[in-house]
């Protein structure tokens, strides 16, 4: 009986190993070089897959930018920083964002009006909304990217976009002027080598 079991496991295991080796070899043989440019742009995007750029996700937008069919300034959650980074990769002039978003926004659920339908939870691309059926939902502001995808599905319109409160624990030094910082870094490095 034990021998039977041993044979069964051995046969299945060896066969699966063989199949795996065949697939590993063929994945090397049929390796596809992805478009390196769109890979780079995709890495810069926030991967919220929110679709506010008008493309069905971050990857398609990256492909479109790499193919010069889309501008660099459509990523809303990524904001200005992402736009500058993409413009840098593409070697084009930075453009103003689609909508001037001076302040980062977060969603806020008016809990006394929430009916607990869970529709906004399903819509949230970053799982920043917690709640259970027929219970109040609420937004974890730290995780919310302000993508506004939860507004539309809400049947009672109880979600507002509010300015992200600036709390002490989230405050950080403002980002340095990238170009000047770059120059400074180069100087320091050349100094270091001397």
């Amino acid at each position, binding site marked *: 009986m034990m021998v039977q079991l041993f044979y069964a496991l051995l*046969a*299945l295991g060896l*066969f699966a190993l063989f*199949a795996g080796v065949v697939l590993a070899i063929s994945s090397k043989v049929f*390796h596809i070089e992805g478009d390196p440019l769109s890979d780079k742009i995709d890495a810069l995007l926030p991967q919220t897959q929110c679709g506010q750029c008008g493309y069905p996700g971050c990857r398609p937008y990256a492909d479109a930018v790499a193919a010069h069919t889309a501008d660099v300034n459509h990523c809303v959650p990524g904001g200005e920083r992402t736009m500058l980074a993409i413009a840098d990769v593409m070697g084009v002039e930075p453009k103003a964002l689609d909508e001037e978003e001076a302040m980062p926004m977060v969603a806020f659920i008016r809990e006394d009006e929430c009916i607990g339908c869970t529709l906004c939870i399903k819509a949230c691309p970053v799982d920043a909304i917690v709640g259970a059926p027929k219970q109040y939902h609420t937004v974890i502001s730290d995780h919310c990217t302000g993508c506004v995808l939860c507004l539309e599905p809400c049947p009672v319109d109880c979600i507002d976009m509010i300015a992200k409160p600036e709390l002490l624990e989230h405050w950080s030094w403002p980002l340095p002027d990238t170009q000047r910082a770059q120059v400074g870094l180069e100087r320091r490095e050349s100094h270091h080598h001397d």
Partner: protein
Amino acid sequence: MSAFADFAVILLSAVLVNNYVLTKFLGICPFLGVSGKTETAIGMSFAVMFVMTLASTASWLVQKYILLPLDLLYLQTIFFILIIATLVQFIEMMIHKVSPVLYQGLGIYLPLITTNCAVLGVALLNVQQENTFMTSALYGFGAALGFALVLVLFSGLRERMEGAPVPEAFKGSAVTLITAGMMSLAFLGFSGLVKV
């Protein structure tokens, strides 16, 4: 009967008389899913032909040299699924490399060949009927050819129907399913062709 005539009968019965889609009702998902355009239907047909033929020969070999000697017949399904999944992965990589356009056209239906019940059905029926190696290969190829024939014919019909004035209530899947039913009725006409 000579060997050649034997093979011809097997092929004919697998393609027309015992057509997997229209008389055994296996593999309906890709039949309805990928038949929108003739181009993708042809691509899918080739992919299924490749997978089905290889899967039926590979599963025959596994049955004969692994499962029967070790008395592991109860592992038949999992072994066959493993073979099919590997082959599908392999052909997916190959199509991605050779023809990215076809890869995009087939989309989700390409990995779904794994769960195409016709492929597993052919492999299991082959062992049930205790076919020889050559017969199994031919049976697999014939079944795939039948699948391809029906899929391409059906996609042609659907392309023609695009411009037809279909009543509002029948638009979309309804008229597609009715057409598929009529095709199945038509294929019943082949049932007396070969005695199997």
